[in-house]
């Protein structure tokens, strides 16, 4: 998706051009583009009067932000302690095999991203994966295969 200054202007208007809304703006941008395009960050810095270095610092600090384009579909496997002891590594292996993707990478055609996260704060649901923003708890191999198949179907594969 190409960078469109008007879209960023609309986001800025929502927060009244206030520089303390930087993180919210980055979240909106991440939702819009599925990553933070460099030109968009540069434009944002100019508009908010915040140095690009400061924006870059914030954008690289949080795992929720990505500077590389993410896939159209995103599978996040929780590797937190509770999920780990309940079999998260196995879930991750299965997901990686089914998607034919190494953990924390995006498919070349931009279809899928497989990522690991360290804790999603829903430990009672472990092992937990997030499929396109939707929390799927108590995972096992059968369920993860089903989720991957559903994602592939949406992609027409």
């Amino acid at each position, binding site marked *: 998706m190409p960078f469109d200054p008007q879209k960023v202007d609309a986001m800025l208007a929502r927060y009244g051009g206030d520089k303390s809304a930087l993180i919210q703006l980055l979240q909106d941008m991440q939702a819009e583009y599925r990553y933070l395009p*460099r030109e968009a*960050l540069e434009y944002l810095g100019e508009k908010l009067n915040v*140095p*690009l*270095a*400061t*924006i*870059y*610092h914030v954008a*690289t*600090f949080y795992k929720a932000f990505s*500077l590389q384009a993410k896939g159209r579909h995103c599978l996040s496997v929780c590797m937190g302690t509770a999920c780990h002891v309940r079999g998260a590594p196995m879930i991750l292996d299965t997901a990686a095999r089914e998607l034919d993707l190494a953990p924390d990478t995006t498919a070349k055609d931009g279809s899928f991203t497989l990522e690991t996260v360290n804790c999603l704060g829903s430990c009672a649901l472990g092992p937990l994966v997030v499929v396109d923003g939707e929390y799927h708890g108590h995972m096992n191999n059968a369920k993860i295969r089903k989720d991957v198949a559903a994602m592939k179907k949406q992609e027409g594969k």
Partner: protein
Amino acid sequence: MAELIKVTIDGKEIRVPYDTPLIEACRQAGARVPTLCYNENIRAYGVCRICMVEANEGRRTRLVASCAYPVRREITVQTNTDRLRRNRAMLINLQLARCPDEKVLHELAAEFGVKEAHPRLTRDHEDCILCGLCVRTCAEVVGASAIAFEGRGSQRRVVSPFDDENPACIACGACAFVCPTQCIKFFDENGKRHVERWHRVADMLVCEKCGNYWLPDAVAQTYARKMGLDPASFAVCTNCR
């Protein structure tokens, strides 16, 4: 005149104004307090922890980072106890594991009896100790904010945004000047100043008299703006004035 507060440092009594950083009080009293991330012209950051001292304000003795601790009431301080030396040794140990080749660290290691980084620590060969002096100088003193920390935890490092040339950098070299490990280097060549770590190549001004390149253009512009000077006042280099 503001009230003065009594501070006792290693048994020596002095009086300092309210809010004086404890490290400055220690130095006034003649105590040596080592530090890696402190510079009196920049806001304290309290990240290297090597300036820790034992402070007692009446109830119990605590370890505080003296650079980030303002004197607000009567306080008794020890700057070189066994406990402090042990703590500093541990910190230097960890720093050495990250940067085993840095001279400043070896000097501190010798002072606090650290032979080399603990064998159980894996050695990186970094030259940056992440004190943040360059980042803070660039933001607070220069006002350019051209560099920043990237990432966090073990991935943390200081870079220019996107690890690419940043036009906001005026190539003044202040970052190189404050760096305790001297890992930021710059050189002037063929009318350009190169700051390699930040991938910055900046144009330099030619002195009208001697014809030598003498100052990055952006530095002249920034200082002219900041100090309300005529940009033309940078036309002649300091040697020819």
